[in-house]
């Protein structure tokens, strides 16, 4: 067995508190698996923000529509990587698609993912961009031209009727997309919520908590990206858009906090056999990441700030409002990460003997180390830069006047 792992587990064994099942010393799922629900959550949240524009006609959000879609795509492409990296035998991953075990939430992931990527996101983008592809193909030459033409799938009809059909079908896809986004992330919640062996995870509220926290994190990410990108592009921030995002963010956050509180009330009231160890967990091993980061910094502080921007809309300067939005979106992003950490890592810190705790020492390098997690977190942003360059969401590219 690898000597470093041996060392670290021997050390963990020294710090075990109470009685844990001997196999519970090592954590099967590490920080990489924390990144996985975090990223999928961002996808679902970003998509839902986009669908607000398309399906619910929230005009104020128009400036972030395409950015939201591209963000969702960038993060979606990275979403399965943490799982893949974490597998003991990544070379066998095709088995999940070839012989999916119908009762396993993880097996369904392959299909939910494929559905969401290909039937929802790519289709929506395709309907949205088909016309641009055709135009760009005309305006460019060589390889680029070929690429754009392939992307049109050979449908080069840009007559108003065809564009209108694109529009209609795109909307239809978005309508399908909303339940799909819920499915995608609700199902990630289900991966944890369905583990009846683990009282910290096994609650029916888990998928719902995941959906709401996904919305919160995705919207916060877009708010953050919108502010940062506007600054980078040196264009003024559309305050109406920002406020609209802020309102949705606040409502999502309130809902999220309410559902999570409900979960705790439920646990405390039902007071099952496991309650004792869970309370010890939250107030001991997870005190910092749960009470301080997730609850205080990630929920209460942004609630107060976003609330302030709503209540004192007229009385505080735009500059201050923007900073409040920026800070609260960052805090929320950190808070939701802490939430994922508390779920994934917290759920493995106590033993299923319900009598004791192990410890988790994060490895720096290696397949499941901190560096890997950081890389996996940076990757979607790099992808997003590429996608923004390619898809040009703000129509800055010179296009010749349509000649038909």
């Amino acid at each position, binding site marked *: *067995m*690898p000597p470093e*792992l*041996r060392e670290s*587990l*021997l050390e963990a*064994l020294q710090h075990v508190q109470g*009685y*844990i*099942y*001997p*196999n*519970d*010393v*090592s954590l*099967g*799922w590490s920080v990489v698996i924390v990144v996985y629900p975090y990223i999928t959550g961002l996808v679902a949240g970003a998509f839902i923000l986009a669908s607000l524009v398309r399906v619910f006609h929230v005009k104020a959000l128009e400036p972030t529509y395409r950015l939201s879609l591209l963000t969702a795509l960038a993060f979606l492409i990275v979403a399965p990587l943490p*799982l893949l990296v*974490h*597998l*003991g*035998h*990544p070379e*066998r*991953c095709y*088995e*999940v698609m070839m*012989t*999916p*075990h119908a*009762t*396993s*939430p*993880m*097996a369904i*992931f392959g299909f939910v993912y494929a559905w969401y990527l290909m039937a929802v996101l790519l289709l929506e983008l395709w309907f949205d961009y088909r016309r641009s592809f055709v135009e760009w193909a005309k305006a460019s030459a060589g390889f680029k031209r070929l690429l754009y033409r392939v992307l049109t799938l050979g449908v080069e009809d840009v007559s108003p009727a065809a564009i209108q*059909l694109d529009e*209609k*079908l795109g909307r*239809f896809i978005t309508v399908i997309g909303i339940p799909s986004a819920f499915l995608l992330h609700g199902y990630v919640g289900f*991966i944890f919520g*369905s*583990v*009846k*062996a*683990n009282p910290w*995870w096994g609650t029916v509220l888990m998928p719902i908590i995941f959906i709401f926290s996904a919305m919160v994190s995705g919207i916060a990410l877009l708010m953050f990206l919108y502010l940062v990108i506007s600054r980078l592009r040196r264009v003024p921030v559309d305050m109406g858009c920002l406020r609209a995002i802020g309102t949705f963010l606040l409502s999502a956050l309130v809902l999220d906090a309410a559902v999570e509180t409900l979960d705790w009330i439920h646990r405390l009231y039902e007071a099952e*056999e496991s309650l004792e160890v869970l309370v010890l967990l939250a107030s001991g091993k997870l005190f910092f990441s749960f009470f301080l980061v997730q609850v205080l910094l990630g929920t209460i502080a942004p609630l107060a700030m976003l609330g302030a921007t709503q209540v004192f809309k007229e009385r505080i300067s735009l500059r201050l409002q923007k900073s409040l939005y920026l800070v609260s979106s960052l805090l929320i992003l950190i808070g939701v990460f802490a939430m994922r950490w508390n779920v994934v890592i917290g*759920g*493995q810190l106590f*033993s*299923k*003997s*319900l*009598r004791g705790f192990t410890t988790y020492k994060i490895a720096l390098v290696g397949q499941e180390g901190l560096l890997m997690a950081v890389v996996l977190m940076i990757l979607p942003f790099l992808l997003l830069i590429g996608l923004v360059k390619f898809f040009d969401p703000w129509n800055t590219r010179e296009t010749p006047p349509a000649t038909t």
Partner: protein
Amino acid sequence: MFGFFARAAVGAWAVSVLRPVKAVAQKVAQSPVARSAREAIQKAFVTAQTPTGYDVHAHHWAMAIDVERCIGCGLCAEACKGENHVLKEPFYFRTWIERYIIRKPDPRSFELRGETLVDSPNGGIGGFPPSPVRKENILRTFFVPKLCNQCEHSPCIQACPVGATFDSPDGAVLIDKEYCIGCGFCVQACPYGCRFLNPVTKTAEKCTLCYHRITHGLRPACVEVCPTGARIFGDLKDGNEKNPVRVFIENNKVQVLKPHLGTEPRVYYAGLDKEVR
């Protein structure tokens, strides 16, 4: 209006066209050229094996534990590691022994029982140190051997995404280590802490009831070396009246671990205390 028709048409198309596609794909996959190609590919993924004259449908194995007989010598856990080449490090066990020490209650309180101490140094291999609690303060103390419960409704099988862990027709929950992708979901799903990810093979591992022994007419290694008969093993399809598990289950009130989870374990315990989980 048009949107509706388009949707309906796509739906109808999809249904009517998918079926032939599947049939054609299967036909292609079954053609002789494809078959030899497939065999070559599969050989790369699957190892050859030797058949035994063992009929999987003629047996149904079961295990029972008599808690009152266990002396905590640790031979079972040791033999298991030896027989199954389990890593020797003290974090990986297919079977282990727990010691429970339940204190007497504080005489000033109205409680019936005091605090419960549980330990399992190195899974019980090498025995247990003297009790940390003095005899006068102990209400009850005993050893409990633990192993995979071979659940009827195994949460681990349910969780496995690829069908690498399964319930064999003869009653053992097994792992196909050539097919396991090492995702660790089954480890999380097991309520009894009986599974672990082997850091060398990178696949999940657990008690197999010594499947390689029982299919050759031997008892599992832990049962073989248990000096006191605390572990009882047998074949439920064996008509013999003296079948040890049958006799044991007929003569004892048996329980299973964590019954509230509905996993329906097939390892039965006699003489359990409520503190055991």
